């Protein structure tokens, strides 16, 4: 499935391994949060890059001990109307200090990508939006009232910036 990151469509080198499946011996893999927690020492000691996929009900705080050892966090949107992933992203970026790749997967649509970007996502796995559309979506607004995980200065503050 197409993957868009940093303004470009890139090749996706990651694969997802479900709860009941075995990890392949090599390659970059993401696993469900519960699977990681079950055997964190074993999984993180493997000679391959490990990432985590969060489901909407997962608590990002549970990732705290592993954040410096995982290379990718995917946040799953099984249905795009389920907005829990936005809070997970903001928590990871702003409270827990995660700086690695934060990828939206699942039902990822063009018109939600700006909100995702503002919440801290920097990569989008989507079959429903092409690169040109995603780039357009990210430019639809030039000002934002509230601060968020994208680090943009809020309108509240811009109004009173000196100089």
């Amino acid at each position, binding site marked *: 499935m197409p993957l868009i990151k940093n303004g470009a469509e890139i090749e996706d080198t990651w694969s997802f391994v479900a709860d009941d499946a075995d990890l392949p011996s090599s390659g970059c893999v993401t696993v469900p949060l519960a699977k990681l927690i079950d055997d964190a020492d074993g999984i993180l000691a493997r000679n391959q890059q490990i990432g985590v996929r969060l489901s909407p009900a997962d608590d990002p705080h549970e990732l705290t001990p592993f954040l410096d050892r995982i290379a990718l966090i995917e946040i799953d949107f099984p249905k795009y*109307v*389920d907005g829990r992933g936005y809070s997970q992203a903001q928590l990871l970026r702003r409270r827990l200090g995660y700086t690695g790749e934060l990828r939206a997967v699942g039902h990822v649509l063009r018109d939600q990508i*700006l909100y995702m970007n503002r919440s801290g996502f920097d990569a989008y796995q989507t079959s429903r939006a092409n690169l040109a559309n995603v780039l357009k979506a990210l430019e639809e*607004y030039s000002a934002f009232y*509230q601060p968020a995980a994208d680090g943009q200065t809020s309108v509240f*503050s811009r109004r*009173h910036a000196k100089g």
Partner: protein
Amino acid sequence: MYRYDEFDAQIVKERVDQFRSQVERRLSGDILEDEFKPLRLQNGVYLQLHAYMLRVAIPYGQLNAARMRKLAKVARDYDRGYGHMTTRQNIQYNWVALKDIPDVLEELAEVEMHAIQTSGNCIRNVTSDHFAGATKDEIMDPRPWCEIIRQWSTFHPEFAFLPRKFKIAVTAAEHDRAAIRVHDIGLHMRERDGVVGFEVHVGGGQGRTPIIAAMVNEFVPESEILDYLEAIMRVYNRFGRRDNKYKARIKILVTETGPEEFTRLVEEEYAAQQTSEKIALPEAEIDRINAYFAPPAFEDKTETSAAFERAKTADPAFANWAKVNLHPHKVAGYTSVTISLKPIAGLAGDATDSQMMVMAHLAERYGFDDIRVTHAQNVVLPHIALDDLYEVYRELAAAGLATANESLITDMIVCPGLDYCNLANARSIPVGQEIQKVFADPAYEQDIGKLHINISGCINACGHHHVGHIGILGVDRKGEEYYQVSLGGRADEKATVGQIIGKALRYEEVPSAVKTIVDTYRDLRTSQDEKFIDTVERLGVEPFQEAIYATD
């Protein structure tokens, strides 16, 4: 009134462009209807029984003449010549074509209006006291904070796909006219040791499960309120139920978690916020927004007006209207005028384009260019000099806008019901009209005094029947319309959910049942000073039940 600066104007312009592109992509089939739905909803576009409906935001109910004239123009050019004021202080157009909506939004943007977040599972239009800035009984003007909350919640990236819709109301008056205890968040402005702050109520609501909000914090200082709201919203977004749309409002989360545990979760989330996560609203920004709501240049006047007194003596109809439709103003010689949109046997909350033009003219000529929409679906001119009142009245009367029934029994909240809405089980408008006819005699109606009848055509409670002094709910019984009557509900500072008094009544039984209830009250009240709601509170519903059902 708040005026857009370059940022506000730019954001609204960009919204118009964005929605235009979304509509084009929908019409070309690029976006599926299912995926378009939340996009159009967050722009106030509903698919109704007969057509698309557009709900335009009127933040905290505030308009001026230019905006009202634009609303009239939209009604004339794109609808069938009228608009419908809603219980959330917005206006709805029932007959707009989808392809025209981007043009409508562009026209609205010219007068600093929009339809952003007037629907969908996001933070909706912030509502407030329609007498804000004018009434004697407020400790300050709540509108600046409504505006700050409006801006903060606009396109908030974390809270655009909540479990369900989210409504915030703010009041600063002892008598709560904003119904804050039946909102998802209700804020009551307080002052403590010279610091402005908010009493925070969470989890009120109507719908299928009416609940009065729990107080989660007695006082949050204004410097912290947005961060506190963020904490509440995050707890709701993460933990609110998403498995069942009828259990998805925050009231269910508060109830199922328990108010104490819910409060603990909010406090925990709030305490965990790091400095870098705070909104850090500059004090200068609070001052900037406050400045827009400075009182207009009132003239020095005496409490009474000779012209007003003369006109009352000369014109009994005017005297009668003035007795009912005025609200005390904080400045001597001024008053707040309610323009009733509830003529007998009319359509509750509807105004024609020419009526809107009249209201705009009056606001400009006599009312410091200030107009409000009320949650009871009326319009208010908040600052009218008593000296000018007769002129105002005569123009209103000529436009069919001088119905003297503010807060009386014929001033009902009525949802669109089965005549318009695809959720409804029963008609609301005609049952309201039939009741109005019973009480059309002004002397009878005024003898009854303040009494709120609220009518909903289905369990979703858009007509606020749970909090009507008399609530009427339409239900479907094997294809036949029936109506459940409840008593004792109220939405003010003593907010209570009404109690159902017995088996549902047939359509044609409702008006006489209401008359029986009202006449029972007139027999039982201690004096004419005891309002209907107070009699029900004192005696309970039994005497009324007996009066209606005993003969069965």
